[in-house]
């Protein structure tokens, strides 16, 4: 029978939640790396027991952990993320130029074909890759060296490369997203890059048609249709049908702000977001925890509320804190800054909390195990 493993990164450690395919009873394992911020952990799609975790601390910096047994045991691998060449400068909050400084790994994306190859999206924004299971890391400098780097600026959370999508159909095609620069695409396995931000809008940006400067919060694709991308932008939910330009599909959402966006495992036009009140509050509107689902690839949205608190709830759901499994019906999972991890075993129709009282959740990933 199938099993599901939910990998949860929190402000104070990692947790691994497991269930059988019914997804009703859960075992909770953790905390791993107690007291450290676990920005992200993710498993290899070709070796489900190979996991990578980003362990960080304001005191002790960056550690990368690797597990070869599905998270039962872990061992640190290399943590040396050194920019290629002279790092250069980017735009700072006050409009001055500021040196590139490595701070942490936000996102780890294992290769679709090789468990020893994994990509790391870091702050200050850059893309690194390891081809030896994390023993060494090399920057893919063509991204930072694209030429627009001096116009990249940090969002409120820092200047992070937070989203990495590997195209399963076109070898060597990679999409990454950076706050606040935008989306970039490589068609040669990360050697060269170009921004693909046409159609995005960023309030207060002096040049409304600027090549970069967009606060993309997350991007998503369905593996069966990687030519279509979905985006939760700082303002608006967006869609790209050509991997180049974007159109708004916020439709009837109660707010156009939010962080994660995910695609149903079996329906490429079914997408999920969690609208958040902005610009300064960054909590749920009206105290209601509502996941919104569109079955039309955007524009038409329905609130999914069964089992979710509908009063006095003021948590947030961060950009990497939502994921789907590949069972049928599709399971949807998300974690909150209040420490709850909710699961839906029926594509969002109803929800139950797997756990209610973890530390603030930074990331949620799901593995479907056969």
């Amino acid at each position, binding site marked *: 029978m199938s099993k599901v493993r939910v990998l949860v990164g929190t402000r104070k450690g990692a947790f691994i939640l497991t269930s059988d395919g019914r997804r009703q009873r859960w075992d909770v394992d953790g905390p791993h790396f107690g007291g450290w911020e676990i920005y992200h952990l993710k498993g290899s799609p070709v070796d489900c027991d190979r996991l990578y975790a980003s362990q960080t*601390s304001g*005191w*002790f910096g960056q550690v990368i952990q690797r597990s070869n047994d599905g998270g039962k045991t872990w061992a640190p691998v290399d*943590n*040396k993320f050194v920019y290629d060449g002279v790092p250069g400068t980017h735009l700072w909050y006050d409009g001055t130029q500021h040196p590139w400084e490595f701070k942490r790994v936000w996102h780890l994306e294992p290769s679709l074909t090789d468990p020893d190859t994994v990509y790391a999206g870091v702050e200050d924004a850059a893309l690194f890759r390891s081809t030896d299971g994390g023993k060494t890391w090399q920057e893919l400098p063509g991204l930072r060296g694209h030429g627009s780097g001096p116009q990249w600026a940090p969002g409120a959370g820092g200047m992070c490369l937070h989203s990495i999508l590997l195209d399963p159909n076109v070898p060597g095609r990679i999409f990454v997203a950076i706050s606040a620069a935008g989306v970039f695409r490589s068609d040669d396995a990360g050697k060269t890059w170009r921004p693909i931000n046409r159609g995005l809008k960023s309030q207060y940006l002096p040049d409304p048609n600027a090549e970069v400067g967009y606060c993309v919060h997350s991007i998503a694709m369905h593996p069966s249709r990687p030519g279509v991308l979905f985006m939760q932008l700082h303002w608006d939910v967006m869609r790209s049908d050509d991997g180049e330009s974007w159109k708004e599909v916020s439709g009837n959402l109660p707010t156009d702000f939010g962080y994660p966006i995910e695609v149903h495992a079996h329906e490429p036009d079914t997408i999920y977001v969690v609208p958040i009140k902005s610009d300064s509050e960054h909590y749920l509107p009206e105290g209601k925890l509502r996941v919104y689902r569109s079955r039309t690839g955007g524009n038409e949205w329905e609130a999914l509320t069964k089992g979710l608190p509908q009063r006095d709830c003021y948590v947030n759901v961060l950009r990497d804190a939502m994921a789907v499994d590949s069972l049928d019906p599709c399971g949807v999972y998300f974690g909150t800054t209040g420490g709850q991890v909710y699961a839906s075993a029926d594509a969002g129709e109803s929800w139950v909390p797997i756990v209610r009282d973890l530390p603030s959740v930074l990331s949620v990933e799901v593995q479907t195990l056969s």
Partner: protein
Amino acid sequence: MIRVILPAHLRTLARVEGEVKLELEGQATQRSVLDSLEARFPVLAGTIRDHGTQRRRPFLRFFACEKDLSHELPDAPLPESVASGREPFLIVGAIAGG
């Protein structure tokens, strides 16, 4: 022999309990102690000093003999009582955050 006391999170990371004892060749300085520590526990590289600049991470301090040595030059000799192992070299995490 140099005695080094690590903060709890780094003891966990290095999988050690209690003090770390290092045999040092040459003069005992912050740099030589940390080089030796990282050679024995490679996982600690980057957690005490920045990989690139080799500077002490901002929220860590170095103490010995009831003195704050954090701003001493990395190649300055450590006190004789540390070099001889009578007193430990303490790496301390700042009490900050929540």
